[in-house]
């Protein structure tokens, strides 16, 4: 079978992803860390959905049953000079911080 690229940034093939699944990496979070899928320069914008669909297939479940990995900031890589040019924001009080869509994912994570 010819090689099919799943993650272009980290050069991960579909075959490598499937082999990792067979080797016991059955969680999207673990597949991400083992194969490197979605950890490259595009931060998974090009591959995370494909990876989740592939995992749904491998597990024989509906795509909706595969929650995405926790989405990490920033959305685009940003230079340390740009970040350092900002004033230091105050600590957000996490007890009163409003819930966001990302929190649901983090909850499932735990």
């Amino acid at each position: 079978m010819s090689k099919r690229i799943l993650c272009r940034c980290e050069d991960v093939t579909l075959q490598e992803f499937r082999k990792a699944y067979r080797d016991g990496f059955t969680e999207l979070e673990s597949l991400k860390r083992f194969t490197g899928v979605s950890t490259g320069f595009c931060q998974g914008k090009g591959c995370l959905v494909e990876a989740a669909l592939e995992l749904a297939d491998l597990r024989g479940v509906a795509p909706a049953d595969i929650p995405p990995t926790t989405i990490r900031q920033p959305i685009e890589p940003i230079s340390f000079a740009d970040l350092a040019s900002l004033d230091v924001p105050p600590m957000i009080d996490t007890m009163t911080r409003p819930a966001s869509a990302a929190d649901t994912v983090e909850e499932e994570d735990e």
Partner: protein
Amino acid sequence: MIPLPTGPVPRRAEAVIVGGGINGLATAVELARRGLKDIVVVEKAYLGSGSTGRCGGGIRQVWTTEENILLAKESVARYRDLAGELGLHTFFRQGGYLMVTEDPSQLGLLRDATALQNRCGVDSEFLQPEDCAKLVPHLNIDNLAGALFCPDDGTAYPFSVVWGYARLAAKLGVKIYIRTELRDVTLVGDRIAGVKTSRGDIATPRLINCAGPWARTLAAKVGVDLPNRQERHEIMVSESLKPFLDPMVISISNGIYFSQSMRGEILGGIGDPNEPHRSDPAHFDTRSQLRFAVRFAKALIDYYPPARTLRLMRQWAGLYDVTPDHRPILGGVPGLDGYHHICGFSGHGFMLAPVTARRMARHILTGEHDAIIDSLSLSRFERGDLQVDAFVVG
């Protein structure tokens, strides 16, 4: 790795270990190696999903208390051989630790620490700022007062170590259940009799608490009140570069640390004095904040000006399970048979787990006393026997 079991948990086990991080999995391996059968590990999310997988992966011997130095020395020797033992690349790299300070009043502390480390057989040395620039070209030494360098220290990739231990544990017959929650503990008189999990009940005479930030909640189920508090710490990686940075640079004056991973990323973090402590899991928060990215960027550029043009790729956070003296809690509780703690590592669990697991496995199976375990028992807080290490950074 190796495919993990799904479905219900076994009805009985010789030991149930709670937590699929490095402590739980290394302890499972060490117990199985000593001949214990029917070991079950339960992990509520995925392997390494707690503190282990969020950590920076540093392994250092530069401490100020003899016990930490000796444990870490034993651990560096273990990490050197670990990849072969586990059958998986751990990305262990001994680039050294360069511990710097900008505060001249800390130079005495660095010199005393170097002397103590040398007496313990660790080859660290005190360095002048000019020597630091030779180790890390382009390091800004204008504000540095001095440094301590330990060439044998290093870093490893936490997930590889976790998967390696899981793989070896599974080969030795340990049953590891992910997505499995520990709901309750059954006591009969003053001894552990079993646990209830989301995949069924297990009768067991031994319960080992390796639950990291959740250890306090688990201890409460058997009536033990741990003094641990949970503290969020943030960390980040940059885009990847060719290898250029050998040591981990760590500052005891402002709490920044940064190193280069074997993937080429700069990986680093910085402690925040404004971070509140939590103890109720309902209040745990591992979300990232812009505040961290800005504080880290300013400090990184201060120490390493060429980083200006480098880009931050991804930031995340994890929880430290912090004890009042920043040292782990090991061993059992008098009057409670079969229950053991391996928790409270206060941000240094990854670097110590391979050796503390081995000592604890021997102690659990033989009941033999171990001077280090004795000194790290929970009762030290009642005795008031607290030694705080001055090199807690991050």
